[in-house]
């Protein structure tokens, strides 16, 4: 799960923006999608009729004008520019423009994983996956160089170091769970992993203790797989936290943060906290070191990121101005303005995360599956869509794998699994009462003494969404107690702390980390993944059959079979009504009239600086 672009600043002028959260949780409405290999779903398969130019799926990536400076506005600041630390969507925009992970997604695909630093995608057929899915061999490009001051050729040892430092507590990469099957990774402290070997300078081999090749290969698209020169970063990693990425950094991608060429120090030059970031061309980057279909054209000469300001002011600056885009989520008023007056300058990226209502599966009335089904049936998802900004920015969610992810189509697509509590997105009280009766309440209304504790976020459209859910519950006879708190507090003090036993959290959401459905379903619904704090299985879902199905799915080596296995898990989750899906998110993005902006379908529609150009 990644951190979503939030819409914090728009709130200051009373304008609601769209935005979800991150790394697994979301809470407004944004978008994302990263995927890992071989998907059959497509994010364009949504029901929203988009005007010409709105849907970025068909965007043209090559043959555009070279040169120029792009101004990027963002009311939000970056959090971590070290690829070993970053998990925030905005960080990704810089990470992927300046670094080369082993694999990348082309902007116009949510699921087609292609070699970036690597020379080929490992498969069983090409010998990249062997030993029954327990060994992965990756070859890297031989002539990729680090930016100054390192300026030497990247080797496989740099990739190994990049991964291993993720375990260093001073780096603390939040994605290490995806590498847990690599021998030595789970117990690493920043030193070498027994499960990584580098037989030569262009080969890295991963030895796994489980047949989880597909999961690991998907994770090899994360920023943490970008090579890091040990001689340069290790001294900085001794600081707590590391100063690599906050003071100095080197790049392997087409761009680099403007920095002192002798020291690599960018702080105060290429990045000023809360003020600006400047990307310039990496002099050591060589376009010929891409040998797959993934070839970033790097049209722009320079990218100036202006940080801060109000979203309702930034929006008009972008729409009426030139050479600029907005990186974070536009304010609702701006989306409306753009849609009505500048339709060619706004895009809506589908597959940008989802929201749902977490229900406590372990305690209280929602421990009963039929009560959960009843609550689901009563929920008016259509009303939620309106609160999220309408059909352009959201669609009714009908299951938990959202558009753009592998397994979405296999688990029912837009309609989702056809079970009685899922068919009417407007809410159906008659169906709900039927399940209340099945739960042991003959009148169809709740007659127990429990008071349902609801905790929601107090920003943006969240209070209205909480109210919609509250109405559904009261219509079923429940007594409720609603608490609205800051979104971060909601996660860290209430919904993410199992012992609080919060009955329902109606404003949680999720963005995948890569296209593998595991990144959407595992942390959120796998029982053994429940932890005492910072828990993302908010509903404390711990169903033995579902747990077993997840383990089987993650250990499935064949991609097609794995996708189907995860789709089946998704159907089980719906059948057990472990949570109530609310909406699949579309992310709005705006650009100036003379910008040929390219959105990353795999990254919630975030602007891709390597493919964006000026007209």
């Amino acid at each position, binding site marked *: 799960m990644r951190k979503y672009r939030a819409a914090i600043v728009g709130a200051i002028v009373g304008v609601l923006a769209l935005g979800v959260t991150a790394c697994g949780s979301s809470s407004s409405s944004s978008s994302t999608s990263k995927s890992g290999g071989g998907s059959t779903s497509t994010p364009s398969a949504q029901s929203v009729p988009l005007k010409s130019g709105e849907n970025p799926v068909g965007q043209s990536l090559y043959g555009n004008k070279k040169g120029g400076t792009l101004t990027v506005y963002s009311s939000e600041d970056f959090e971590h520019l070290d690829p070993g630390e970053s998990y925030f969507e905005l960080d990704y925009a810089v990470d992927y423009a300046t670094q080369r992970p082993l694999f990348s997604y082309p902007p116009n695909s949510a699921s087609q994983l292609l070699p970036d630093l690597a020379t080929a995608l490992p498969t069983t057929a090409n010998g990249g996956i062997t030993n029954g899915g327990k060994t992965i061999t990756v070859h890297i490009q031989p002539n990729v160089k680090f930016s100054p001051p390192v300026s030497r050729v990247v080797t496989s040892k740099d990739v190994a170091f990049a991964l291993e430092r993720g375990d260093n507590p001073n780096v603390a990469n939040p994605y290490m769970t995806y590498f847990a099957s690599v021998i030595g990774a789970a117990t690493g402290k920043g030193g070498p992993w027994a499960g990584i070997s580098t037989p030569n300078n262009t080969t890295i081999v991963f030895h796994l203790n489980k047949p989880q090749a597909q999961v690991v290969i998907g994770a090899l698209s994360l920023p943490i797989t970008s090579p890091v020169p040990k001689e340069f970063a290790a001294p900085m990693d001794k600081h707590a936290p590391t100063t690599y990425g906050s003071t100095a950094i080197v790049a392997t991608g087409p761009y680099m943060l403007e920095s002192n060429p002798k020291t690599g120090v960018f702080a105060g030059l290429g990045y000023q906290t809360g003020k600006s970031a400047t990307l310039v061309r990496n002099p050591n980057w060589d376009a010929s070191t891409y040998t797959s279909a993934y070839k970033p054209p790097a049209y722009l000469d320079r990218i100036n990121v202006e940080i801060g300001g109000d979203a309702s002011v930034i929006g008009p600056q972008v729409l009426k101005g030139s050479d600029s885009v907005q990186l974070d989520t536009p304010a609702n008023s701006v989306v409306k303005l753009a849609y009505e007056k500048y339709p060619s300058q706004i895009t809506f990226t589908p597959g940008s995360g989802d929201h749902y209502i977490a229900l406590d599966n372990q305690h209280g009335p929602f421990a009963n599956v039929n009560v959960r089904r009843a609550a689901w049936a009563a929920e008016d998802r259509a009303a939620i869509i309106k609160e999220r900004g309408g059909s352009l920015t959201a669609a009714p969610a009908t299951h938990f794998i959202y558009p753009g992810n592998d397994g979405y189509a296999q688990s029912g697509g837009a309609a989702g699994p056809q079970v009685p509590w899922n068919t009417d997105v407007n809410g159906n009280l008659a169906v709900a009462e039927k399940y209340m009766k099945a739960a042991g309440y003959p009148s169809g209304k709740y007659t127990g003494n429990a008071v349902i504790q609801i905790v929601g976020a107090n920003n943006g459209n969240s209070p209205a969404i909480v109210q919609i859910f509250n109405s559904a519950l009261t219509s079923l006879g429940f007594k409720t107690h609603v608490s609205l708190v800051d979104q971060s507090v909601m996660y860290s003090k209430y919904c993410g702390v199992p012992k609080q036993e919060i009955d329902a959290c109606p404003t949680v959401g999720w963005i995948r980390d890569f296209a593998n459905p595991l990144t959407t379903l595992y942390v959120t619904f796998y029982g053994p993944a429940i932890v005492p704090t*910072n828990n993302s299985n908010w509903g404390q879902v711990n169903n033995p059959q579902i747990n077993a199905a997840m383990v089987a799915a993650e250990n499935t080596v064949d991609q097609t079979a794995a996708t189907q296995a995860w789709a089946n898990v998704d159907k089980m989750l719906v059948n057990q009504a472990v949570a109530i899906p609310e909406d699949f998110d579309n992310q709005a993005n705006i650009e100036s009239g003379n910008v040929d902006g390219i959105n990353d379908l795999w990254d919630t529609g975030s602007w891709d600086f390597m493919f964006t150009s000026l007209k």
Partner: protein
Amino acid sequence: MARYIIRRILWGIVLLILVSALTFVIFVVFPTANPAQLRAGRNASPAIIRHITVELGLNHSIFVQFWDYMKGIFFHFNFGYSYYSQQPVLTLIADRLPATLSLTIGAVILWVVAGIPIGIISAIKRGTFLDRTAMGVALTFVSMPVFWLALLLLYFFASDIGKFPLLPGANSYVGLTADPGKWFTSLILPWLVLAATQAAIYSRLLRGNLLEVMGEDYIRTARAKGLSERRVIWHHGVRSAITPVVTVLGLDIGGLLGGAVLTETVFEIHGIGLLNFNAINESDFPIVQGTVLLAAMFIIVMNIVVDVGYAYLDPRVKYS
């Protein structure tokens, strides 16, 4: 006088300690996000969160955390480090202070220059069309939320998005030393926004005070002694009526130096206010604490300055 000033400074320090304690308590007692979790990300393991907790010193008792913080500030002038960027809070504040100073000084000059004459004229011309118009306009500006007025001016006059593109708009601020010309023009709209509301308040305040003072016996005596009306108004009326205005001015300047959050945010001026706003959104406690302390310090200092200034403005005031 010197003893009075020293006493006020000492009380000011005590007040700063209390403000620090209050800010700390607010962050600890009220439900706030765990900074270690925020920094670690949602996927982070409990072990990583524990490590970051230790890194940030959050594993210590509240009292130890508070003592460490106070010790840092008052003994080492160290306001701590940002949870996110790891930069020293003092460096961040120092980096942003010039922008806030620029915004404050210009706005204060503008509203004093506009508000005080309007207040005096309205009082002198009480009940006339001029008075009613001035007070009506003042009331309008007082009623306008700052952010709304800021947006209005941007939509009308900003060179990039305005209907009548006359002046630099949001994100145009440059430092005084970088380009004095651009510095001046980039601040005209923010100055106008801040000054409009404040000038209106000051004019109404001064008008009310002056009307009251002008009805006093000593004013009648001054007139009876044959002093010119101008001298009566300026030397006896305004001098007395302006004392409460100076009090408010001191507080306002102190408050603004602590950051004009709305104006800085809408105009994207990287000052103390915007720094504080972002820090609150990110639960970056050290920055919030630093900026709150800075604001408190400015208000305390300005209060002392105002109190000392009374002695010069009003001969009846004597400090001992």
